[in-house]
């Protein structure tokens, strides 16, 4: 390849960057840079013609649609969005904090720690909680004198916390003394994991998440690749992209390019053991080699060029330190370059294995904290480039220690700004064998390895986020090369054109690199939102979140179809959606460019969903695509949300009809109870206490042996039910504790006698009250009978036949239901233990429901509220807003 005969003039200085840094919005406009004599052949005849370094004319590519269009149906399964700034930052100062950058942000550490305690109470407080539970009172009532010495009323503390929360932001914060006292008392021993250690870990993780949020370099290179099949003119190709809930499935999808690309057949799928960060591809000898990078694994696949052939995995390597780069050699089959964050560069050959080229934890030209490293191939198959944030070096794989040279340096040599850092280097071999693209957060550079350190082209790209993805579409001789730059967080896409050849087809010598035409912004995925039909607010929000997900990859293809040339640009989002946009090449300049595009992009108008007059189908294909995609998305979301909601109230879903159907007819007990109820109602009295002892006790089933260690709660309940709960309790606790308990029970009974019936509501909200009540009941001795108590029930084993129950009677209905709730009856119906738990969860929903059964016997009430404490917690954690997973 020839070297340009004349280069554009430029100064060359050495040293650190002198120019003061900072992103500037308009820095890339209005400059020609330098000029060069364009055509020396014509000088004799007339004036010399000059060509500018920037500002020449480029090709015109017009977007065919007003928005990017989904290529594939939305991925199944619920997508978990990555944390947003408002999840991590303290309060609402998100906007300006983001701009202020790393230093200005205040991370909401306390909120995240609180989330941990609420989500993982067992891990946080497990053993202490078990030891202390009788000293914490969760009821609303006052704690009476004798118990007060050893019991804390937690509701009061909670109120204090709420009050504190409400006063947040107030300058004069007075900590409630009770809270301060409590925290002083407990801070050192209450936590399962030492608080300091936990806080350190959490803080570290928060910082990591925040820096990822500011700039996540693990995505560098992008995880989307387009493999054309066969010749360049073919209308089919393969899209390689990650998918699945954890983005750990690799898909190879055949695509047919019609007006819009369309999937053909089902994709070849591979499940990997980590989140896919990068997919790199190169074609060697008619075969595509696809490298896939996740944090600790890199793999390579071979895809034969012919259609219909399955991709074959070749090899996988495992790294101890996360890999930061994987590139595939465009020269030799099965050769890749791998970099890890420890500063090691490997040349990986599928046949001969790994060859370490360099191990250098320090950055090359000046000190920078980032462990990011990159490597790519150059014009020489044995020479690799190595990059860190400070620049690029080329080294020879045959003698990596000795033979190397600097290709790019962040410094005065390239006219860099202060604070500028390398973001993505890319070998432009398909356009020109010795050219290289380097992007920084401010500019893009094109370098020629034959003239190192001096960029042959430099341009301030003005993108809001650093370009992490780039894609090259080489042009034929006489045409421009197209480069796409893509950013992750802002989803920006920029199309640039450059050329390194003369326009004339006389085969004149290579001319210096020029940027051709104005840069062009392409549609981002989120940009389609304004063109979509109006959605229900929650759907709109969902869509906004989904479409606004950071971009994760970029691919493109050029296609020639007779006279019409089209460019297809694919964009992958972190949610796993692949969107596509089509651009058409305008060969001749139209006489008067209509302001069609200027009008259509104004917000509000949505020509995407208007029927174009020219189309016979009514709605355009793009609109149809969208309809389908939206429908599939919302269907998927609905299924997902149903899955995560608390159990529904319909019993039919929990149990089959058969299971619900009891043994034929009501049992003797049920009949008795009904009869009794009826009698009491006739008399106008009320039942103060069920008298199970007085009734014929139902045949007790042998308590089931719990598998894998007895569950504390269920063994206790079984003991209580069979009557030897006292014994059980004695076994469990020391004597003194039991004594104290008895005193408490005694007091409670007296209290109850004076007050009458106590409300049940407290027992619904706390398991502690339930416990005390349970103990009270079980060792209450002979029950105090109410005066209105029917005598008939005191007869043991009285035949129920005397008063047959009325089947349609509304009074009769609660009885079987109550019977259903006892674990024994569940057990004798053959309902397995897990199902019983589900049922209890289901019942917990009742626990929150305001109307209470007016008068329920204590024993059944205690049955009812068994699961309340735990299920309440679980339902609460489900209904709370989704929060970022912090890696717990």
């Amino acid at each position, binding site marked *: 390849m020839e070297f340009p005969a004349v280069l554009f003039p430029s100064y060359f200085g050495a040293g650190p960057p002198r120019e003061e840094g900072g992103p500037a919005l308009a820095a890339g406009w209005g400059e020609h840079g330098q000029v060069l004599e364009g055509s020396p052949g014509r000088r004799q005849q007339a004036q010399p013609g000059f060509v500018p370094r920037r500002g020449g004319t480029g090709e015109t590519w017009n977007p065919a649609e007003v928005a990017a269009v989904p290529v594939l149906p939305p991925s199944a399964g619920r997508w978990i969005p990555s944390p947003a700034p408002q999840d991590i930052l303290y309060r609402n100062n998100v906007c300006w904090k983001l701009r202020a950058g790393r230093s200005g942000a205040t991370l909401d550490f306390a909120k995240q720690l609180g989330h941990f305690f609420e989500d993982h109470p067992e891990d946080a407080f497990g053993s202490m909680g078990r030891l202390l539970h009788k000293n914490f009172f969760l009821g609303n009532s006052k704690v009476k004198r004798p118990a007060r010495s050893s019991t804390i009323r937690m509701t009061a503390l909670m109120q204090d916390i709420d009050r504190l929360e409400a006063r947040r932001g107030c300058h004069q914060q007075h900590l409630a003394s009770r809270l301060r006292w409590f925290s002083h008392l407990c801070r050192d021993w209450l936590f399962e994991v030492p608080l300091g250690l936990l806080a350190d870990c959490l803080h570290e993780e928060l910082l990591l998440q925040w820096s990822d949020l500011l700039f996540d370099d693990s995505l560098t290179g992008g995880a989307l690749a387009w493999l054309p099949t066969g010749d360049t003119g073919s209308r089919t190709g393969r899209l390689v992209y990650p998918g699945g809930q954890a983005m750990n499935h690799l898909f190879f999808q055949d695509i047919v390019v019609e007006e819009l690309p369309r999937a053909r057949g089902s994709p070849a799928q591979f499940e990997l053991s980590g989140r896919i960060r990068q997919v790199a591809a190169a074609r060697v000898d008619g075969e595509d080699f696809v490298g896939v990078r996740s944090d600790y694994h890199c793999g390579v696949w071979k895809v034969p060029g012919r259609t219909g052939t399955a991709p074959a995995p070749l090899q996988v390597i495992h790294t101890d330190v996360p890999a930061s780069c994987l590139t595939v050699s465009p020269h030799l089959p099965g050769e890749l370059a791998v970099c890890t964050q420890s500063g090691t560069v490997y040349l990986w050959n599928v046949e001969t294995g790994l060859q370490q080229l360099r191990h250098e934890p320090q950055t090359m030209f000046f000190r920078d904290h980032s462990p990011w490293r990159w490597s790519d191939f150059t014009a020489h198959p044995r020479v690799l480039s190595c990059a860190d944030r400070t620049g690029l070096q080329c080294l020879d794989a045959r003698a990596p220690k000795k033979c190397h040279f600097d290709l790019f340096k962040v410094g005065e040599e390239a006219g860099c700004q202060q604070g500028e850092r390398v973001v993505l280097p890319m070998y432009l071999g398909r356009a020109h064998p010795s050219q290289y693209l380097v992007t920084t957060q401010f500019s893009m550079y094109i370098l020629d390895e*034959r003239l190192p350190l001096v960029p042959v082209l430099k341009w301030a790209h003005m993108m809001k986020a650093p370009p992490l993805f780039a894609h090259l579409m080489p042009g034929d001789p006489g045409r421009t090369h197209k480069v796409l730059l893509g950013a992750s967080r802002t989803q920006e896409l920029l199309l640039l054109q450059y050329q390194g050849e003369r326009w004339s087809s006389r085969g004149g010598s290579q001319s210096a690199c020029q940027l051709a035409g104005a840069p062009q912004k392409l549609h981002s995925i989120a940009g389609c939102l304004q063109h979509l039909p109006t959605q229900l607010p929650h759907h709109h929000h969902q869509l906004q979140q989904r479409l606004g997900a950071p971009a994760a990859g970029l691919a493109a293809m050029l296609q020639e179809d007779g006279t019409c040339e089209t460019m297809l640009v694919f964009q992958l989002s972190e949610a796993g959606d692949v969107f596509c946009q089509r651009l058409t090449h305008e060969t001749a300049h139209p006489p008067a460019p209509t302001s069609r595009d200027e009008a259509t992009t104004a917000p509000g108008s949505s020509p995407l969903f208007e029927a174009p007059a020219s189309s016979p189908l009514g709605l355009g294909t793009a609109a149809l695509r969208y309809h389908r995609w939206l429908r599939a998305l919302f269907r998927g979301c609905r299924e997902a949300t149903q899955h995560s909601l608390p159990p529904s109230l319909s019993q039919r879903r929990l149990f089959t009809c058969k299971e619900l159907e009891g043994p034929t007819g009501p049992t003797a007990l049920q009949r008795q109870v009904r009869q009794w109820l009826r009698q009491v109602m006739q008399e106008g009295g009320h039942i103060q206490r069920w008298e199970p002892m007085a009734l014929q006790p139902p045949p007790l089933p042998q308590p089931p042996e719990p598998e894998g260690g007895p569950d504390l709660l269920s063994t206790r309940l079984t003991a209580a039910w069979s009557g030897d709960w006292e014994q059980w309790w004695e076994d469990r606790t020391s004597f003194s504790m039991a004594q104290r308990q008895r005193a408490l029970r005694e007091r409670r009974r007296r209290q109850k006698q004076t007050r009458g019936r106590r409300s049940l509501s407290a027992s619904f909200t706390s398991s502690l009250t339930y416990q005390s009540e349970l103990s009270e009941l079980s060792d209450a001795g002979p029950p105090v009978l109410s005066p209105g108590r029917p005598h008939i029930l005191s007869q043991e084993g009285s035949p129920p036949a005397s008063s047959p129950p009325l089947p349609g009677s509304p009074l009769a209905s609660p009885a079987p239901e109550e019977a259903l709730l006892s674990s024994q009856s569940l057990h004798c119906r053959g309902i397995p233990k897990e199902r019983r738990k589900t049922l209890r969860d289901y019942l917990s929903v009742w626990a929150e429901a305001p109307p209470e059964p007016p008068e329920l016997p204590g024993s059944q009430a205690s049955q009812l509220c068994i699961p309340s404490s735990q299920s309440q917690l679980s339902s609460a954690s489900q209904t709370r807003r989704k929060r970022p997973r912090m890696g717990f």
Partner: protein
Amino acid sequence: SSHEHKLNFKRSKEACLSYIQDAMLQKQWKRAAEFLTFYVESLEKDYSREPIGPSEMIWRIGTEILCHHSRSSTKEFNCFMEQMKTLGVKRYLKVCLEHVFHLLCNGQIDEAYQNLSLAESWRFGEQTALQDKEMKLIQAYRGLLDYYSWSKQKNILLEHGKCLDGFADLSVEQEMHSCFRKAAMNLKEIIKIPGVWDLFVKCYVDLLEFYGDHNEACQVLNEYAYNSKFPANPNAHVYLYQFLKRQGESKKSLISALKILHDIVPSHELMIDFNTMLQKSKKRKKRRLGLEVIFAALDYAGWKENVKAWSCLARQVKQIVISGKHLDWIKQEWNSRKDWWPAFHFSRYLAKRNWQENKSLSYEKALVAGILLGKDCKYFKYVSHQGCKAQVKRFRMLKKFVNRHNPVYLRISG
């Protein structure tokens, strides 16, 4: 309050700018122009301390819009530029330079020259380092334009010299000499500063050569090529080589110039010339270097399908094989390449493609492959088979030659 006012103003300014930016990136120049008229207000209350202030923004954006707007005219553009020059002292030279570039690209050489002269006479207090650089560039471009008018007059004179004589010639000649003086003075200045000055160096050397100052020209070119403060520009060595060639310098000096170019850029296109030159040499060392040069050039992806280079290699390899001497040269070169050249150059896929696309390329490559890898190598087998099938005589000869010299392969690879 005033603070709030400032904040609001700043916000709306930013919003306006982002609208402009958005429109421009979508090539909606009209819309951008409308927004820019609002943005001009930001000049009035410029509280910003950013590196690029509103006046520079307006200059940059306005220039870009005027370059693309369908209804902009040259007159409007010049008018806008004049206004922009007065807007900021610090940027005066930069704006001038860009204006000149625009004029040059539109073929308005005379206007450009006027602007350059005007800018050169501009003085304002102490100059910053940046302004100093810009001033030097302005002078250099003026020198360049002087050079062009010099060369124009030179051509007139050369044409006229054949048929005319008299006073007219004298004035033209005088003007030509004054152009020379101006051009030489300005061009000489800039090429002293480290940088890439291909254009200026070429012109300056042309001037010097015309007036017979070969020593000066040689010195300038040597300085440009070998001064370590300058970037390693391959063109500097190319110019020196071309100059030496024009001067009819000895082979030795030509070779030493090219040797340095080979060390910097082994993939330079002049390596073919270098190889032919070395091959013709009688010295063993030089022929050895020639083999090295051509092997090194063919390492690069850009040379993969270069017929000239492959025929150079094939010729030299064939020579060595026939003579039977210096097989160790090939062996040494091959040693560092044998693990990757077969996949890089001699795969079956490439054999097929080269045969389809370029028969003579596949002939040269097959010869090299046959010698380096033996007669069983995929590339050679495929090409010779196809060649024999197509009844091409030279392919049959090739097959015979390789078969006869197959033991060479064993010695090279052994």
